[in-house]
């Protein structure tokens, strides 16, 4: 294994001050090698999104640090692209103009932008919807636009914050398959946050299970199932059982710690 792409060391995040302060992340240590597809799995409110936001530079850690290729993260940047649960498309831009947003920021000329955008519209199967506005399209289509808008920028690291959580099961599976297909071609480093066990097993090389607040890593598993993966296979089921068992233990412990909750 080469040197890790992303390193988090002793990361602590507190919201608020004094007795009302909430500890979202408590002593997170993590090293993600280049090209790995890592899923962070955890219950709602465990701080998994906060971790992603700190990596993106959108949120500051209370203490500890994150480094990318050895350089400390201080601000957001084009090297770390992010996909959001709410899609975060610009409603005043058509599908095409959303996708070319990053290229505009790079001040590329119109012809180059057009060509690259056309390429990504094709990959994401959006050719026929290029000139439609987000509100005219389904949730699945919208997230496809967001994926194209992210990948056209070719970021070294892809941070994905429950990107498929608001979609129906079928669309979710489909987009997961497409994401893996594109990822296998580019082999970028991916951190994918989800609370769905199946989604995590389907996508990830590595599964990080997080505890309830304050968030810590409880388990760090490798998933070596061959791709493409079949959620109905015995091997998939075996992994699913193992992970589900781990999470159940975690819920039980959290219940003992907070009997009132």
């Amino acid at each position, binding site marked *: 294994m080469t040197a890790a792409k992303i390193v988090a060391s002793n990361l602590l995040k507190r919201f608020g001050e004094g007795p009302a302060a909430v500890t979202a992340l408590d002593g997170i240590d993590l090293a993600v090698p280049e090209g790995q597809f890592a899923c962070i799995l955890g219950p709602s409110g465990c701080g998994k999104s906060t971790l992603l936001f700190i990596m993106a*530079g959108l949120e500051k850690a209370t203490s500890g640090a994150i480094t990318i290729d050895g350089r400390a993260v201080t601000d957001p940047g084009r090297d770390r692209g992010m996909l*959001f649960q709410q899609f*975060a498309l*610009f409603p*005043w831009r058509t599908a095409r103009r959303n996708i070319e947003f990053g290229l505009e920021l790079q001040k590329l000329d119109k012809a180059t932008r057009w060509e690259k955008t056309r390429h990504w519209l094709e990959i994401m199967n959006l050719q026929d919807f290029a000139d439609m506005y987000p509100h005219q399209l389904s949730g699945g289509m919208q997230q496809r636009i967001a994926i194209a808008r992210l990948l056209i920028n070719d970021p070294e690291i892809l941070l994905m914050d429950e990107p498929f959580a608001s979609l129906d099961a079928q669309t979710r599976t489909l987009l997961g398959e497409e994401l893996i297909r594109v990822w296998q071609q580019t082999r970028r480093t991916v951190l994918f946050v989800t609370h769905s066990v199946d989604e995590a097993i389907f996508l990830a090389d590595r599964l990080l299970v997080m505890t309830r607040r304050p968030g810590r890593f409880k388990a760090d598993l490798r998933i070596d199932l061959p791709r493409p993966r079949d959620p109905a296979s015995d091997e998939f089921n075996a992994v699913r059982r193992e992970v589900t068992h781990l999470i159940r233990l975690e819920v039980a412990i959290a219940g003992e710690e907070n009997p009132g909750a």
Partner: protein
Amino acid sequence: MANASNHKRRLHRLAPVIIPVVFIVSWEVAARFGGHTNVLLPPPSRVFETLFELIRSGTLFDHISASLFRVAAGYALSVIVGVPIGLAMGYWILAEGLLSTTVNGLRPIPASAWIPLSIILMGIGEQPAIFLVFIGTVWSIILNTSHGVKNVPKHLVWAAQTMGANNAAIFTKVIFPASLPSTFTGMRIAVGIAFTCVIVAELIAVRSGLGYLITEARMLVRSDIVIAGMISIGAVGFALDAIVRFIMKRTLRWQKGLMTE
């Protein structure tokens, strides 16, 4: 059965004109047979005759263009001054701090209360009328613009940041377009206020325009001209609002649901 529902449908189609027709007919009858009152309150037939005469002679057109010129000048001034102030107040906390006392202190003073001071300072003429339109409309433009800026969805800004946008790009490519619907709402409200203000100004502070037409006619006890003028004022106000709605619809096609009212 079919017959009954046909009757019902016909009644529904006629419903909007019933009250106006009954009103105009009774007014005509009352004015013709009411003795001395028909000088003070002429029948509608006289009013329409006068209206056509005002149109034919070009008098009405001159007054309408005088009023519209003042609306346009005051309104343009209001947009030129109000939008940048609103953007600044929404974006910079310091600008908000510096300007909020002034804006919130002056805003409750009705435009009509500015008339005496503006006549003292500017005399009778175009200036006080244009100033009145400006002072009547600028607040709604400032407040709606700054409201729009403050309510730009956070995730749109985040998305832009993770695609490499600097502060200038975030402002011009995200915050400004995202705040436009709110700005336009302010501008639409302002058109109605502007027209009200110009009529009020013309009643007192200037010697032309639709407002002047009806006060002058009052002094001559020409109720027919007063009422014909009122009808013209209503028609021009309606047309102004229709134009603004049309422009908004064209510019904000992406904004779902905004145009339904």
